[in-house]
């Protein structure tokens, strides 16, 4: 396990050097007065907040509070739901990504998403990762091999699967499947990773592994994670936003939220009094 981590760290180091020059507290996403509707039902109500580059932001709150809906709007997955529409803006590199003229395909490549339940394709481990690469015209066995290895290493899965890359992804355990899903997203070199309760469907050991992985990934990526697990939120994230009934009740440094929340609902929720 220790060796594995070391390897991961090394491969991480190379890419993160490039980014070092950028300002650490640069804002990558600015949400302005965003509302999201499903038909006439308003799921997200006029929220505004900023997300920093290379940070982990946790979105917490009871079920149906709008946090997943918000997350799915950042890479326009809500477009798949015909009755959904929105107001306000999400600014990403000076562009409102909710605009009609945004190329959602290119956007989703830069803003990747990992879902609650592991959803590998019914293909081999190798092809799960190359699936999207091939669409983007990346060819050549050498090049694909290199990306597959790099992504699997980043997702801390390489050592477990390197001898059986041509086996079906369904043969992996749930936790491995989820790390494969993370790996195939990383292969696209996204800027932002959206994680929708990535560990909630997994056993505690896999859960811990995923958590460890998220912490590692922070060096290279901006991560927004929806979670129901308070310990997880407090352990991995830098900032925490507490959602309630479609609004952000409180948004602050994670430490502040968990030790000294300024709003009573936040305190009630964190201490497990509801939700």
């Amino acid at each position, binding site marked *: 396990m220790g060796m594995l981590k070391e390897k991961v760290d090394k491969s991480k180091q190379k890419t993160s050097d490039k980014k070092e020059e950028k300002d650490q507290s640069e804002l990558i996403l600015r949400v302005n007065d965003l509302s999201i509707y499903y038909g006439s039902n308003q799921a997200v109500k006029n929220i505004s907040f900023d997300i920093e580059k290379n940070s982990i932001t946790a979105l917490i709150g009871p079920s149906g509070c709008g946090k997943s809906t918000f997350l799915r709007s950042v*890479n326009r*997955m809500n477009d*798949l739901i*015909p009755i959904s529409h929105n107001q306000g803006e999400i600014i990403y590199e000076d562009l409102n990504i909710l605009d009609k003229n945004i190329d959602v*395909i*290119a*956007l*989703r*490549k*830069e803003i*990747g*998403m990992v*879902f609650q*339940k592991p*959803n*590998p*394709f*019914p293909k081999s481990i190798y092809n799960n990762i190359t*699936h*999207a690469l091939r*669409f*983007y015209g990346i060819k050549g066995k050498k090049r694909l091999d290199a990306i597959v290895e790099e992504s699997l290493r980043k997702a801390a899965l390489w050592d477990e699967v390197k001898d059986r890359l041509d*086996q*079906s992804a*369904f*043969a992996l355990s749930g936790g491995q499947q989820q790390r494969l*899903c993370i790996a*195939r*997203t990383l292969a*696209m070199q996204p800027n932002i990773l959206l994680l929708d309760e990535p560990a909630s469907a997994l056993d505690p050991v896999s859960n811990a592994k995923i958590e460890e992985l998220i912490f590692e990934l922070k060096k290279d990526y901006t991560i927004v994670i929806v979670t129901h697990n308070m310990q997880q939120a407090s352990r991995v994230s830098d900032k925490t936003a507490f959602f309630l009934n479609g609004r952000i009740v409180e948004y602050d440094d994670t430490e502040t939220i968990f030790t000294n929340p300024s709003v009573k609902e936040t305190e009630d929720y964190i201490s497990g009094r509801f939700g």
Partner: protein
Amino acid sequence: MNSKVADRIATGVFIAIATIIVLVLIGLFSFILFRGVPQISWDFITTTSSTVREGGGIRDQLFNSFYILFITMLITVPLGVLGGVYMAEYAKPGKITNFIRSCIELLASLPSIVVGMFGLLIFVNSTGWGYTIIGGALALTIFNIPVMVRVSEDAIRSVPNVQKEASLALGINHWHTIKTVILPSAFPGILTGAILASGRVFGEAAALLFTAGLSTPRLDYMNWNPFSTTSPLNIFRPAETLSVHIWAVNTNGIMPDVEAIADGSSAILVLSVLFFNLTARFVGSAVHRKITASK
């Protein structure tokens, strides 16, 4: 007490109905098989039919049936699958989609004789082709397309949504997602449906009477040039299929062994359709197992 008696009587009636249906099936099958199978011989399958003399076979009819089926499926499967993709993935709820649904519904409920009449009007008379294999195949395409569209749409809709989301979330466009994720997952369903539809097409006769005709020219099975008039592969020749042959022999047949020919042909027809149905089941479950299996 009264209601209990009524309940018993009713249960008896339902059991009787179920028994009748099973007996009807057993009767039909044993009739066809016991009378027909003894007529089937290598000679019967490999000689040409005769209009007046005894001892005619069904070689050409059998070939025609499979050949028309093949051409029909060659046209219908791509058309039906793409139509199914349109209905399941691209059609937005609204007037146009409703209209297309109505069209499919109407095509599905058209009597096959009406399809045959339309084929006569367009593929036989307007084109000047006369009775041809391609005319028959196009008529059967009209007859088969609603089935293929429905089968494909259902198979595509039953692909788990998470698969589609996974692909789209990676920045892959809709069309590529359809080609590489959705259609492969829907493949077993589409294949099973296509084989079942083949059985239906294979047995169809009314739509072919006025399109592929009631006769077959002399064929030379050594001639593989599809443009030659004596080649079995020529799609611009008339072709009587097995189903049409059964009908024609029974209504106008003047050869002395009409009954034997009809018996044998029916047995082969039913066995073929049965074969299609069993294959559909087998292939469907086998492919399904292979795709979802964890090695």
